């Protein structure tokens, strides 16, 4: 009998429950941390409100996107429900000249980088392979090949060093991705060349139906040390802790100290994608347990206790979220179906003669139908 216990309900094996940096408890209590508190000393109520607002907006549009998919407007959507703090806390620590290489689930990150409502729809509606111009918002096209982007981030970071700038590259990836050879090779390159790259792993406990115990027998952050890369394990549902960890990592990178690995421990509250049926493999009690650690609720509690989150403010935030969601829905409807011949565009910078021929033949073919009609 092989020893991997991967039965459902073992989503978070005991050995995965190592200590993680936490600054705000699920109950909304701010915990002191002598090391990380100075890093976020500037985060007053107003700044925390902004982070809270981001999370609310992101959850709102994520829910909207799921609805759009259910209504047949999108082919697919990978919900980020439950991972708002991990995404907002990390992305809001970045500068505009930093660069993000993400996976498909980081729509919260894309929002922070400046992706427009309709941009978030394009790929999932199937009208384009990319939602935005990567250079315009400092974020690459989300990667579908698991793990590949970690190498891109590492290479980009090397370019930053060559350019003599202190911009940083961030690779977002999941717990499942940590098994991939590419992620390993990225860490080897990053360590060898002290690349200013941050490996930001959202350990949401699942890779589709596979619990993290199938990928790792130790906390994922522990992998880093063997490369000579510092690893930080952070409560991924605590936006403040994530922000703090990310700032520490960014400072190291900007200061020429090289890569940092961050494991944000969180939970995928929804299905893997809208095509998935998690009832086949998720123990409902796990979800109950994690719902109690909700990233938005805890900040809401904290801010409310402090009197910073007034009804008025809450309403304004809700309105902003609704507006974004509405814009997204409208943007989705408004996305034009590409021209048939667009298929032939951008294979190369200049089309080859063979592609030109294929294109013009197909144009002629299509024209025949017009004539027939």
């Amino acid at each position, binding site marked *: 009998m092989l020893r991997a216990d991967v039965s459902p309900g073992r989503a978070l094996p005991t050995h995965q429950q190592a200590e993680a940096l936490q600054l705000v408890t699920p109950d909304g209590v701010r915990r002191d941390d002598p090391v990380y508190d100075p890093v976020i000393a500037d985060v007053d109520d107003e700044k925390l409100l902004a982070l809270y607002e981001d999370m609310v907006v992101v959850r709102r549009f994520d829910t909207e996107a799921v609805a759009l998919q259910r209504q047949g407007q999108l082919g697919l959507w990978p919900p980020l429900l439950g991972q708002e703090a991990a995404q907002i806390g990390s992305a809001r620590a970045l500068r505009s000249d930093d660069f993000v290489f993400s996976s498909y689930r980081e729509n919260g990150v894309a929002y922070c980088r400046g992706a427009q409502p309709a941009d978030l729809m394009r790929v999932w509606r199937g009208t384009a392979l990319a939602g935005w111009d990567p250079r315009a918002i400092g974020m690459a096209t989300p990667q579908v090949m698991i793990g590949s982007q970690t190498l891109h981030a590492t290479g980009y970071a090397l370019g930053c060093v060559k350019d003599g700038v202190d911009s940083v590259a961030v690779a977002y990836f999941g717990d499942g991705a940590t098994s991939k050879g590419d992620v390993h090779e990225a860490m080897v390159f990053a360590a060898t060349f002290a690349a200013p790259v941050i490996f930001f792993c959202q350990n949401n406990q699942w890779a589709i139906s*596979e619990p993290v115990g199938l990928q790792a027998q130790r906390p994922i952050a522990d992998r880093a040390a063997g490369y000579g890369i510092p690893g930080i394990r952070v409560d991924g549902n605590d936006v403040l802790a994530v922000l703090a960890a990310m700032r520490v990592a960014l400072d190291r990178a900007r200061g020429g100290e090289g890569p940092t690995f961050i494991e944000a421990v969180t939970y995928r509250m929804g299905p893997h994608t809208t095509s998935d049926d998690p009832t086949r493999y998720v123990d409902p009690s796990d979800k109950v347990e994690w719902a109690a650690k909700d990233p938005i609720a805890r900040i809401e509690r904290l801010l409310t206790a402090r009197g910073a989150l007034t009804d008025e403010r809450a309403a304004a935030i809700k309105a902003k979220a609704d507006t974004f969601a509405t814009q997204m829905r409208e943007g989705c409807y408004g996305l034009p179906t590409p021209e048939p011949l667009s*298929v032939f565009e951008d294979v190369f910078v200049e089309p080859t003669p063979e592609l030109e021929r294929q294109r013009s033949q197909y144009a002629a073919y299509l024209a025949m139908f017009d004539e027939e009609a």
Partner: protein
Amino acid sequence: MATIRTTQTLAAALNSGLRHALDDDPTVVLLGEDIGTLGGVFRVTDGLQRDFGPDRVMDTPLAEAGIMGVAVGLAYRGYRPVVEIQFDGFVYPAVDQLVTQVARIHYRTGGAVRMPITVRIPYGGGIGAVEHHSESPEAYFAHTPGLRVVTCASPQDAHTMIRQAIACDDPVVFFEPKRRYWVKGEVDESMHDVPLLDRARVVVEGTDVTLATYGPLVITARDAALAAQDEGLSVEVVDLRSLSPVDLDTLEVSVRKTGRLVVSHEAQGSGGLGAEIVASITDRCFDVLKAAPARVTGFDTPYPAAKVEEHFLPNLDRMLDAVDRVMGRQHSLTGWRAS
């Protein structure tokens, strides 16, 4: 065993085929991502882990090279691994192990070590998916000596061929036409009188043009043959089934009869399987060819966004257009020539 036919979807026919294989041979072991509890993202392995246990139907870490390399080790130890690659586009990380190891260890060891590994790959487009979920990478493997490459077009073939592939002592890359998973058909599980794994099959007889294709496009080609009939053309449809080796003998017989050949596949045309078939048949049948063989394939672009994939994929009209072309018909839709 009495010949009992049941109606199954193509996916279910694969599932029942895998079940037989697991039943028949204790060395058969399934490996892949999400194939256990979930039963695979297409449910092709549904219920198998429950019934055969996690030692024989193994969910693996998310690492395709790892899966393939571990399968090699299992084969070294005498097992018969059946690997699932979740989608066509995710085979690339496993290409190294497939091409430099799986395909060559029998040759490398002078026949001392066999690699009876089956690699199941749901493939092809037309399902409105995001990038890397709609590809047809068969030509890479057909160009790799030491690999057998097959695909199926019907539930019956799905069932028969997956069992043959697993029983085969050579490595077999088994392409499953994912957009046809839900096609239903009669399936006889007796394995009586089944064609060999490497034989093509004439699925529609005809006399004017040979239309050779495989996998998801066989249904399209049958429809095209029907439509051509209305125009007074007799199209013979050959389902290649085996993509490496290609059953050129069956194809030659057909082309010697018709004198004309159209080959169709979803994969990009340049360097695709169609090129090999056209070249081989031109070599064999030059004396009887009445027109240059035509290819109807995906264009030489990456697989495009879902909303325009219909403009990439071969379809009935493009097949008919090519048929008209090799027939020299004036009213071919475009009358185009490649030049």
